[in-house]
């Protein structure tokens, strides 16, 4: 009885000890600063977002200053790079509207993440956190996702309700040696 009572505990301990011991001991532990510097993938909860804030008005200024218009057009339309502003109104169903990141993305964090990692072209990674918040706010306002005076920051950005809502497909639970789609023979 005593053994039975501690057995699950022993098993748990065993499992965690097994899981925790490295086999080869190769590689070094990165410092917290090193991790923070590289940790630029912003997930839907926004936990990786840095401090900072920005509004659409400020974003319109940054858009001008950084030369975004050269590629994306003066108001997010008409440049050689992908359009940023939807021409259709919100009465058109989201999947019938253009494939525009700040419109169709399920999370505003995806927009922030891409501007931060990938813009401006040729000077990627040079925007400050405030500038990225401001540009994100400007693009979301441009597509009528948020009001002009909304302040985006670590707390408010992940809470932005994107127009797509829940209307997008989730990927199937992937398993090895399994058909890519159940009941699809091809």
């Amino acid at each position, binding site marked *: 009885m005593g053994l039975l009572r501690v057995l699950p505990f022993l098993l748990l301990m065993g499992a965690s000890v097994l899981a925790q011991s490295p086999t080869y001991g*190769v*590689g070094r532990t990165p410092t917290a600063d090193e*991790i923070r510097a590289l940790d630029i993938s912003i997930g839907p909860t926004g936990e990786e977002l840095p401090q900072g804030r920005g509004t659409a008005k400020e974003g319109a200024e940054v858009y001008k200053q950084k030369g975004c218009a050269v590629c994306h057009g003066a108001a997010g339309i008409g440049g050689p790079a992908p359009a940023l502003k939807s021409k259709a109104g919100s009465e058109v169903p989201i999947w019938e509207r253009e494939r525009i990141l700040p419109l169709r993305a399920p999370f505003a964090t995806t927009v922030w993440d891409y501007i931060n990692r990938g813009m401006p072209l040729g000077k*990627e990674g040079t925007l400050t956190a405030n500038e990225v918040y401001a540009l994100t706010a400007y693009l979301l306002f441009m597509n009528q996702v948020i009001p002009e005076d909304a302040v985006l920051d670590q707390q408010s950005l992940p809470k932005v309700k994107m127009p797509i809502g829940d209307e997008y*497909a989730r*990927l199937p639970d992937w398993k090895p040696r399994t*058909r*890519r789609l159940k009941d*699809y023979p091809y």
Partner: protein
Amino acid sequence: MGSKRTSRRELLKGGAALAGGFTLGAVAPALGQTPASGQAPAHDHPMIKGSKELIAYGERSRFVTSVRIAHPIGGRPSPDAFGKVFHVAAPLQDSVGVITPSSLHYVATTRGSFMPDIDPKQHTLMIHGLVDRPLTFTMEDLKRLPSVTRLHFIECAGNRHNARQTNVQETHGMASCAEWTGVLLSTLLKECGVKGSATWFVAEGAEEVKGASSMPVAKAMDDVLVAYGMNGEPVRPQNGFPLRLLVPGFEGIFSTKYLRRIKLVDRYYLNYNDFGHLDEDAKVAALDYQIGPKSVITYPSGGQQLPGRGFYEISGLAWSGGGAIRTVEVSTDGGKKWNRAEFKGTPQRMAFTRFGYGWNWDGNETEILSRCTDEIGQVQPTREQVAKYWNVPFERNYRVPGLDNSVMPWRIGRDGSVKNGLA
């Protein structure tokens, strides 16, 4: 041809093969000499004089001119005016065997980019997030760990065939197969100790856009490779030097180049590359993820010319994201009768498999096609079959939902010309 001359030629060849060794001094004067007038030349062909560069790093014959081309035709050029590279297709019409030479391997970049010129001594891979011990590995660290060497294809989502294309480079050239060497991602993850709450991982590159994709941890633990070697040498810059992820069977963009970071997370992260996979329909989303069974005849294929009736070994490539290829069938009558093709070598999981089928062309117009089945029973469909599955009327320009793994027909004309059967 006299036996004396033959043996002399072999001597010359032997001298070259010895990489400029002892015989070179004796042979070189003969090479440089022009035969005196009236005398027969000492050999049938001009000779290639060795150079420091050619000895150090060899090159192919000047008669072999197969090259990569920008993809798609009429699309964005590579390089562009700034020297950026976008999408470049491999010349599969000239391929033999299953390995795509590194110089001819297809290239795709997220949005057109320069190749980062990374010093491997400075490059590291950091694994963090939901792990017991975040770890940073140098290239030297990675080479200390147990390695694997595997053949794997990579295929771009843009590898779709349509009626406007003329040859197999245009229709299927955004797929290639190489021998990859590296460490299994599972080996690295076990060193870090993955927490039970980790369900996805984000892999990120060091290029200017820092391309990042989310993938299931189940895939990481199965067969994902952190590769530093490609076809017997370091991975080429266009293919991710010094380190890339190789995600067997998944759409190409997942095989993150210039790999610098892997983060274990508890949800689908939906970074920019993932946004590219966003779809309204769950079925289409699934069919955009793992590559289905696919094959194509590379000889005879579009743009080639049959010199006349008679014997030809039809040759082609088959691959699947579901595992190894189990069977390939070839039809030489437009799909009425299917014949079992022969494998050239043993099919490997998620790798090109070369197949062949002996055929006597009677000189009549016909259509040749191939289809394959993989080890989990997925069958390569015709476009008609796909349309039927989706319950839509089939038309000539039917677009296969998800990644296009449909059968590719080549039409043989009476004049021996080979043309796109979809046209």
